[in-house]
């Protein structure tokens, strides 16, 4: 059972976002970059499958050279190999371009299953896994919170509004992992040491046979802005029962929210 896991290097969720003076870039300050939280579920799932069925787990990322840290994190958790797809513009690739790069990488390594995260925090696209599946012509199941594998048959649970869908698919497939699927392990000290010695393959566009023109962005960015500040609110005063009466009246008459 060979598993590819897509991992993205992202600013952690504590990051406070500002817009740079040009209005076209974000100023993330001293943001700390980490493995995308959802991708930890994907790595964990890959490791559990390997422990049960043998084979290898390979972590793949698209980004700049700093993204190697996220690969090291996956290796420290227990992944066997890592691939860094890095070239000019790769860290700003849009979802379709990212998917084209990942699909090209997947074309060069044997796999039975591809795991990715539900979404990459920051970009919040929730697209890349599905795009890769289509480009490779294999089934895709997203937002997965439960997974059973028998031979090549997968039974998956996916989260939908007000319930859970049970989905059947067969390998090879792409699965996007949601919280609830498993509890990601923390790397052990031994794992961290071992990760330093594991091999990281670096591929550029040319190694992947990609024409840079195929990676052009599908949309042009016009501007970035912060959400408008919320108008100052009102903290009510008085005895609690009277405050509650006032609140319900305000919600009904002033805010027309109920």
């Amino acid at each position, binding site marked *: 059972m060979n598993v590819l896991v897509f991992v993205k290097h992202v600013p952690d969720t504590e990051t406070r976002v500002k817009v740079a003076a040009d209005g076209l870039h974000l100023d993330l300050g001293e943001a700390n970059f980490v493995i995308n939280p959802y991708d930890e579920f994907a790595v964990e799932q890959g490791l559990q499958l390997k422990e049960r069925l043998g084979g290898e787990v390979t972590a793949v990322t698209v980004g700049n050279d700093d993204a190697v840290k996220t690969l090291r994190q996956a290796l420290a958790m227990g992944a066997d190999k890592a691939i860094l797809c890095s070239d000019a513009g790769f860290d700003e690739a849009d979802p379709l371009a990212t*998917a084209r790069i990942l699909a090209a990488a997947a074309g060069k390594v044997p796999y039975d299953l591809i795991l990715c995260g539900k979404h990459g925090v920051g970009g*919040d696209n929730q697209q890349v896994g599905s795009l890769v599946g289509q480009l490779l012509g294999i089934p895709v*199941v997203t937002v997965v919170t439960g997974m059973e594998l028998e031979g090549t048959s997968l039974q998956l649970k996916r989260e939908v509004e007000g319930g859970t869908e049970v989905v059947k698919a067969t390998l090879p497939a792409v699965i996007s992992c949601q919280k609830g699927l498993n509890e990601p392990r923390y790397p052990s000290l031994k794992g961290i040491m071992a990760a330093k010695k594991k091999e990281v393959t670096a591929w550029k566009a040319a190694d992947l046979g990609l024409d840079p023109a195929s990676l052009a962005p599908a949309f042009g960015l016009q501007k970035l802005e912060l959400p408008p500040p919320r108008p100052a609110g009102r903290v*009510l005063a008085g005895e609690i029962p009277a405050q509650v009466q006032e609140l319900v009246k305000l919600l009904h008459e002033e805010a027309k929210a109920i």
Partner: protein
Amino acid sequence: MNVLVFAEQRDGKLKKAALEAMSVGREIADATGGTAAAVLLGQGVGPLAEALGKAGADKVYVGDDALFASYSDAYGLAVGKAAQAMAANALVFSATAMGKDLAPKVTARLGIGLLSDVTSFTAAGGAVSFQRPIYAGKAFATLVPAAGKPFGVTVRPNVFPVKECPKAGEVVSLDHGVTPGDLKAVVEKILTAQGELLDVAEANIIVSGGRGMKGPENYKILEELAKELGGAVGASRAAVDAGWIDHSHQVGQTGKVVSPGLYIACGISGAIQHLAGMSSSKVIVAINKDPEAPIFKVATYGIVGDLFEVVPLMTQAVKAMKAAG
């Protein structure tokens, strides 16, 4: 621009989000000079076409077939066919569980770009631009499709109004080309959570509880208020991690990003990851015993007090208000 809208239905009922998407599609078509069509997939769904005509569809491509009885990857194939049939320049999906799953499967097939979770747009004089949140709403990006290139968008539910705009709604049977061999990643069944209220992603009112709830048994006071208001119950990650409530209720950067008409935060401090997920709500009420809690910074109205006193009183007051008409 010719605009194709995917009209999501479940159990033979059109989703409200489908009509919202139809209204968006109509407006883009009108502003840029083109037709707006809907594509409707399922079994026995023909009668739903009429509502789409009322909401602005010139044409409705209907794929009424046992092959579409359950959602599967074949939906992507069929929507792609409809897009080709009408030479669509723009595809509009709802940013629901199904829409978010389907949209990239269609756009990858067509080799075109996709914008997720659009919350506003401007369409005038042939041009269109879209706004979408990034970093779970910590910032907003305005984007324009590359000149002359088709594209797709998913639009966030509960954000765009449904506008009556009666059009012909001419029903066209979709030549979908799907065969049983295309049925991959098929939904076998849907397990609905027992006695569930609405899902936070769909609700216009959310009553949310955090670590201040103290334990799972106390969520019933939130459920009672939510029921009275016709809303859903949400939660902070602290409450989800404590195992008090299922993750599907989590609001925030690693939960659901919501923008309901009313968000009532009970015993939630207002951590940056939580605020990211709910601070675009129209009206926010904070109930917290700590006057310094950051949640008050985004609240429209706040009560500093014990939620175990405030929430039941509020349920009573809403009941009384409803009884008084």
